[in-house]
């Protein structure tokens, strides 16, 4: 049995397999299908300072090997999370991390401060890359000075592990990654969804109510891998890789490209027990390759 444990900032994770925000609810939705404690961690649904109703239906369309979504951060707000969700999930024996989203720097800071007060939430993932909200969201993640401002403000008030989730909808993701690192982020996760669109030819109309949405699923994996690879060479902080991971082999590819940990997103919808299968697959791979620890594999492409 190989050593699957990893560190990210102050976080100790029993393995590098995490689930992506927005694809795993609050974890409880998946409790019937597997033992949640077998995962390294869970990023719960994007949480904002105030409740959000999200976008109008249709919010989703299937695309070749993937899907577009335009949910728009529907959530009942951080106070509801604290009063109604947190008590239900805080005893799950894994790292429960909150994806913090917002429209203004002040919102991000206020939401973060409230999450900071929760003992059993050891980290946040700052979402500066949601493509489906009108204000804020991706705007913070596609502009270096905006990214810098929001990370600096949150870092000032938050002393647990700060992970920043980056948008792929930029010319050069390494620039944003370096800015975020310079502002003191402990880690970065990439990539969020790629901005996309689908059209109904017969009706001559866009399918999504918001016209554009975020593309996810196996179709984006090559783009995500490339971005993890480039970013690994540009920063020193750990990278959490995601984008189209649907089996252990995909996970290993991300780790070889430079990811310390990985997140499973859209594929949770296809196989709600996939995280545990990926944990097992990584372990078998390491044993087969004679690698003692998954940490040795990070960025381990053979030149």
């Amino acid at each position: 049995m190989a050593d699957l444990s990893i560190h990210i900032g102050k976080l100790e994770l029993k393995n590098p397999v995490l689930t992506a925000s927005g694809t795993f609810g609050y974890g409880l939705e998946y409790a019937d299908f597997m033992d949640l404690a077998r995962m390294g961690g869970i990023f719960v649904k994007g949480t904002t300072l105030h409740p959000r109703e999200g976008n109008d239906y249709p919010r989703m369309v299937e695309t070749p090997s993937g899907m577009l979504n335009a949910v728009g951060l529907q959530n009942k707000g951080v106070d509801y999370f604290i009063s109604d969700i947190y008590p239900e999930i805080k005893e799950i024996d894994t790292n429960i991390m909150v994806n913090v989203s917002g429209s203004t720097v002040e919102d991000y800071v206020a939401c973060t401060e409230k999450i900071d007060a929760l003992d059993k939430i050891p980290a946040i993932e700052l979402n500066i890359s949601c493509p489906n909200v009108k204000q804020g969201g991706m705007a913070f993640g596609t502009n270096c000075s905006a990214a810098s401002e929001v990370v600096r403000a949150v870092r000032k008030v938050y002393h647990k592990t700060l992970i920043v989730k980056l948008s792929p909808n930029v010319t050069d993701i390494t620039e944003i990654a370096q800015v975020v690192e310079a502002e003191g982020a402990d880690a970065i996760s990439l990539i969020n969804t790629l901005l996309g669109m689908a059209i109904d030819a017969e009706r001559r109309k866009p399918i999504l109510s918001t016209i554009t949405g975020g593309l996810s699923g196996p179709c984006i994996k090559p783009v995500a891998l490339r971005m993890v690879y480039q970013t690994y060479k540009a920063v020193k902080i750990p990278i959490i890789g995601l984008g189209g991971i649907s089996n252990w082999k995909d996970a290993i590819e991300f780790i070889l490209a430079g990811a310390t940990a990985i997140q499973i997103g859209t594929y949770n919808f296809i196989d709600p027990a996939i995280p545990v299968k990926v944990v097992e697959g990584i372990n078998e791979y390491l044993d087969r390759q004679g690698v003692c620890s998954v940490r040795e594999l990070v960025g381990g492409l053979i030149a």
Partner: protein
Amino acid sequence: MMKKRIANWKVKENITFNQNYCLLKLTLEDEPFPEFLPGQFVQVKIDNSEKAFLRRPISVHYVDEKERELYLLIQIVGTGTRYLSCLQPDDSLNLIYPLGNGFSIPDPSKKSKKLLLIGGGIGSAPLLYLGAFLRERGFTPTFLIGARSERDLLQLEEFNKLGTVYTTTENGRSGEKGYVVDHSLLRKKDADFIYTCGPNLMMLSVARYARENGIPCEVSLENRMACGIGACLCCVEHTIYGNTCVCTKGPVFNINELEWQI
């Protein structure tokens, strides 16, 4: 509520109707047979298809507990449903089940209640299991089933075993000509409860009829879904509770819960 499960089911039989529909009879080996409620659905995995990447939500058409069989009635409309129509006996099919909430079942002491089940096209699929479930509890359901043509009226013999069946077709070749809401049966206005499933516009007109006549009514929605378990928030409907997941709070809703322009 029953625990949700994921398992491989085995195809026992796959019957094609009129080239456009298929009836899949599935059985579960090595596992206890689950309890399904009428109106619930399953999420079906389509293997090795880049075009049908997501699971397909399919309503429970019928459950034969004695034979340990689950029936799915499927209209062949795209890549995913075509895949299902090509399955052969002994093939395996991965399902997540049981999902969603079912139709409400009246108190068994009120057996004289007149229950009207209105289906449109493939939307009539869940009404067979609902009818059988009601029949087993002593009710006598009445069915009103509409379709584009007589070739789209499915399983009529099975419905006939459970109660009186009225039909409409748009071409008039079976039953009354027109839409279900135009059927003469509805002029009597003597239903005590209406259950309906079909295209949204049809359900909207049934909901209007029900509201005008003060008849309680439940509709079963088929919004586009990804996960089917309340995680992705894609299939939401505007309800009096805000944007609500059809997969977990539905697919069955009372019309009074919906923000429809009834």
